């Protein structure tokens, strides 16, 4: 996603045929990439609502070629409430400060809420299922499944098969030590759940 601490030593990242290897996080987001954080940071003093509106407007501005194109407030409000209800996010969370004092489950849901509002082209979900209880997992996973469409693809990073009870992947890749060691369809995930990762000689 363009974290400044990462240095790319070789290779390139192509998105829609365009090279985004050198692009900063803001430019990547404006082009339609999204990362659901495993441990999202708190921004005290900034409400979820005002943050979401600023982020949407930043992306709209970039897409309008640098001209302000703010989302009309009634439209914003309507889509926010719909998305919150869909993800069973308590409405009073909208006026709380972003991730400030949120439970683990609230943070994950608000990450997916952001994805629903920002409508990326490609979303990377980094262990979104970790630390969620069964009910929360179901809501979050179904929310992701509903958003996936020909307009939006999702790369779900997980250690467990259980999220795949609600999300049906088109492809499953097994990633060991920075390399893809196995590829397949949804059946690969079921096989892994049954047999574990031993076959791939995961170092202890």
């Amino acid at each position: 996603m363009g974290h400044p601490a990462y240095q790319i030593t070789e290779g390139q990242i192509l998105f829609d045929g365009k090279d985004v290897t050198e692009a900063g996080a803001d430019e990547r987001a404006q082009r339609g990439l999204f990362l659901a954080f495993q441990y999202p940071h708190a921004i005290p003093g900034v409400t979820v609502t005002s943050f979401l509106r600023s982020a949407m407007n930043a992306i709209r501005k970039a897409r309008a070629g640098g001209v302000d194109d703010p989302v009309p407030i009634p439209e914003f409000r309507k889509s926010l409430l719909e998305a919150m209800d869909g993800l069973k996010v308590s409405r009073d969370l909208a006026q709380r400060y972003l991730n400030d004092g949120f439970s683990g489950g609230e943070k994950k849901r608000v990450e997916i809420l952001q994805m629903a509002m920002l409508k990326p082209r490609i979303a990377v979900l980094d262990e979104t299922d970790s630390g969620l209880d069964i009910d929360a997992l179901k809501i979050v996973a179904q929310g992701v499944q509903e958003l996936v469409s020909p307009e939006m693809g999702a790369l779900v990073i997980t250690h467990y098969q259980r999220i795949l009870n609600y999300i049906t992947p088109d492809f499953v890749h097994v990633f060991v030590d920075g390399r893809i060691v196995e590829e397949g369809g949804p059946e690969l995930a079921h096989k892994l759940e049954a047999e574990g990762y031993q076959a791939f000689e995961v170092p202890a």
Partner: protein
Amino acid sequence: MTTSETEVVRDIGSEYKYGFHVPEDYFFKSGKGLSHELVAAISEHKNEPAWMRKFRLKSLDYFLARPMPQWGGDLNRIDFENIYYYIRPTEKQANSWEDLPADIKDTWDRLGIPEAEKKYLAGVGAQYESEVVYHKLQADLEAQGVIFLDMDSGLREHEELVKKYFGTVIPQNDNKFAALNSAVWSGGSFIYVPPGVKVEMPLQAYFRINAENMGQFERTLIIVDEGAYVHYVEGCTAPIYTTDSLHSAVVEILVHKDARCRYTTIQNWSTNVYNLVTKRAVAYEGATMEWVDGNLGSQLTMKYPAIWLMGERAHGEVLSIAFAGKGQHQDAGGKVHHMAPRTTSVITSKSISKNGGRAGYRGLLEVAKGAVGSKSKVVCDALILDEESRSDTYPYIQVDESNVDIGHEATVSKIGEEQLFYLMSRGLTEAEASAMIVSGFVEPITKELPLEYAVEMNRLIQLQMEGSVG
């Protein structure tokens, strides 16, 4: 230092020898510099009662006798001989639109300040619409017995009230700059709210259109009588351009039994200004005093709004924000003195420094012997935006009573790379992301501001951040 200073000043007699007349337009022609003749002339020109003239002249003696404070910021470069102490307000600010520095005009444009208001801020035009609002407001207030005047008119029209309280909360010899203000004051507000009257609309100096509105030696006196309430708002978030390099105001407030007063200031002086202000309130039994103080501009600000909690259960709050940019030093904070049992206070200070600026908190919390069951909480948070900038915290605490509850928290933080990355990964540019973090940091205070001030404050932070990064 204080002992010898007090001794020096104590020896100054109250007999006054400078009671001679000066031609009325003396100061218009003589221009810069400070003298007894000038002070006498100011008083003469305003046609003041003898006691005020004496007060001014004696204050000048105190000012001259006191050494320059050597703490806080560097005051040694103030050239007292090169300052206009009393001139016609039209000469005080830029004479014409064209004389204004481009960066000030640019900031006003970007804040979206209407043309008429810009001219008013620049001192090159009056703001006729608010004059109408002001007159309507005046009629409503008068019906309730509320007095809301500039200080000069207050002295003319309500001399007994002014004489009773003027200089009682902040004595003329309180400090060097209070003494200077006491000698040469002009303008400022005079407010009296009768018992039980609750003024619903905030009183804004902004409405009180008169030429002496934004003087550099304003003098404000507010008296809130028993059970009454008033919220006074002064200043504005737009940068105020002035060719004067010294702003030294005095604000005195008395909050009587069970009354409440809130005083909100947002100041954004141009960066040539030394802003040295003494603000103090006394709160009697069951009364509440709240200072909300925002300092954005100036070269050096030294300002510590104070509250003396004199009666049982009195409550005081100080909320302060200081923003120091390039070449700026904001030495701000608050002081609360618990002098009676079961008094409570909260001091919240937020400071931000960037581009080599220096912002600090200097606070005093005192609990006197006998102020049993008093509670106080001090929270000061500093945000430093880059490596060159600096933050200082000087929390003086003096507690002479054991049965009290005192809390002090201080944090210093930098804008985290992880926070920035998180916000930028949602499409915000680095400047937008930094501005959002800063706005969030000061939110506990901006939420206490009247809405239009809060909005302007946030826009101003955005402008400041655009300049600092990227």
